[in-house]
């Protein structure tokens, strides 16, 4: 066994409540070029209302992992279960149905700049309604209500009609989160949601993600470069290095030793 899994088993289990909304990753492997795995053998289970921070140096495959989970990237082998359903074998409409249960928040927000904030939030419902209704912008009234509720939650109600390119970075990321939550996802993935934001806004976004986790009772996976921020907001920290999980435990157990193992070197810790 790897030293990695050892360190993982040594630590206490994170205090996450069990729930029916879960993600199980089993033996996930991803190679972009044959024989050069970016993800070697990832095993990860998250369930219930729980924020998990994934940390690791640039290029270890954190983004790849998240993108594999909703199949924006095809995994090479392994299984991914979302609330018990294996999504690796799905195609076409089934894949889309599975994807709408996985919310995704992007580092660069990925909003449609020329559409209004409201339309961007409603984008989260595209998996649920027909292209025809999407074209006519005929969303069910309950979706619109929900979108307003979410805008209330993220504090952007008065911007509903504004175009997305009028917003600041932090505001855009809130829209991105509202859009993901709009999907009524079973899990929420966030790929470096705070890297383009200032420290204060970053904290607010992380608080928002935690709130989303608890309100919707879903697991949230956050890729994050800011270890302090990750520690502060996560219930659980997963450390990755060179395509493997080398730490998995509660933030309190994450020592400098672990950080050295994850990022390599030590000068930067000082």
């Amino acid at each position, binding site marked *: 066994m790897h030293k990695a899994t050892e360190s993982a088993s040594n630590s206490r289990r994170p205090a996450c409540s069990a729930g029916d909304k879960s993600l199980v990753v089993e033996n996930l492997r991803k190679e972009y070029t044959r024989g050069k795995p970016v993800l070697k053998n990832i095993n990860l289970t998250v369930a219930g209302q729980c924020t998990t921070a994934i940390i690791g140096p640039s290029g270890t495959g954190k983004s790849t992992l998240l993108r594999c989970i909703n199949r924006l990237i095809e995994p090479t082998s392994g299984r991914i279960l979302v609330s018990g359903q294996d999504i690796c074998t799905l195609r076409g409409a089934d894949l889309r149905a599975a994807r709408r249960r996985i919310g995704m928040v992007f580092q660069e927000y990925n909003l449609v700049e020329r559409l209004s904030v409201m339309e961007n939030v409603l984008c989260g419902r595209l998996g649920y309604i027909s292209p025809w209704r999407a074209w006519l912008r005929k969303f069910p009234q309950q979706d619109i*209500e929900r979108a307003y509720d979410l805008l209330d939650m993220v504090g952007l109600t008065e911007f509903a009609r504004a175009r997305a390119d009028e917003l600041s970075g932090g505001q855009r990321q809130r829209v991105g989160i509202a859009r993901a939550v709009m999907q009524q996802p079973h899990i929420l993935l966030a790929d470096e949601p705070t890297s383009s934001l200032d420290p204060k806004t970053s904290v607010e976004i992380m608080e928002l993600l935690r709130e989303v986790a608890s309100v919707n009772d879903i697991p949230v996976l956050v890729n994050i470069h800011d270890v302090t921020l990750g520690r502060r907001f996560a219930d659980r920290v997963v450390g990755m290095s060179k395509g493997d999980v080398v730490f998995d435990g509660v933030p309190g157990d994450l020592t400098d030793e672990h950080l050295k193992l994850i990022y390599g070197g030590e000068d930067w810790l000082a």
Partner: protein
Amino acid sequence: MSAERIWQRFTPAERMARFVVFLVAGILLAWSFRTVEIIPEFLMDAPEQVADLFKRMWPVDYAYYERGVHAVLIETLHIATVGTIMTLGIAIPVGIMAASNVCRVPALNWLATFILVSSRSVNTLVWALLFVAVFGPGTLAGTVTIAVRSIGFVGKLFGEALEESAPGPIEALRAAGAPWISVFLKGYWPQVSPAFWGIALFRWDINVRESSVIGLVGAGGIGMALDEALNLFHWDRVALILVCIFAVVVIAEVFVTHIRKRII
């Protein structure tokens, strides 16, 4: 209160304006469909007729190239090139006159705009008809046609490029007491010359296409050969000429894109 939260994509005024545009477009189209004189049988017949045309075009009469096409093809390229060069000579002063930041005489601006608009509003083929009537059939009419028709295009874009040039260097030159010709040569020209050559090349590309058809009304080039083959129902020769035009046009376009990349 949440019941009142209705969301619509556009404000009422926007919706109204769009609605009016679509309504007018719809009415115009409906009117067009109702009144245009189309015989439905001809439409039904079209695919068959087109297939028949292709059948008659095959096999392409490649042997005719040496005898009847090569010379006029070269002539076509000459018409396009000389026509473009002639245009440049006229379009530069007209473009300067049209640029309101370079030429501050409103009357001249107006005159230039008038020249540019009339050059562009009349189609190449119509210009060709005019010049064939003036100069008689032949390459002279074709070259003048190409030149006159291109003035509008080149002059307009050149004038716009001039208007967009940065005022800073110009002011500096004026402040140094340079006469206007120097201001133009050392202030404006360096700023707009890449755009100018780009426009010229682009127009040459268009002119290759246009000079291949003006012969249909007698203005020289490969179009005259096409006209003759059509009138004699030599469909295999028509096919050959079309292939030649296609090849020349594609080569011209590739050439122009290549050079433009190097200029810009």
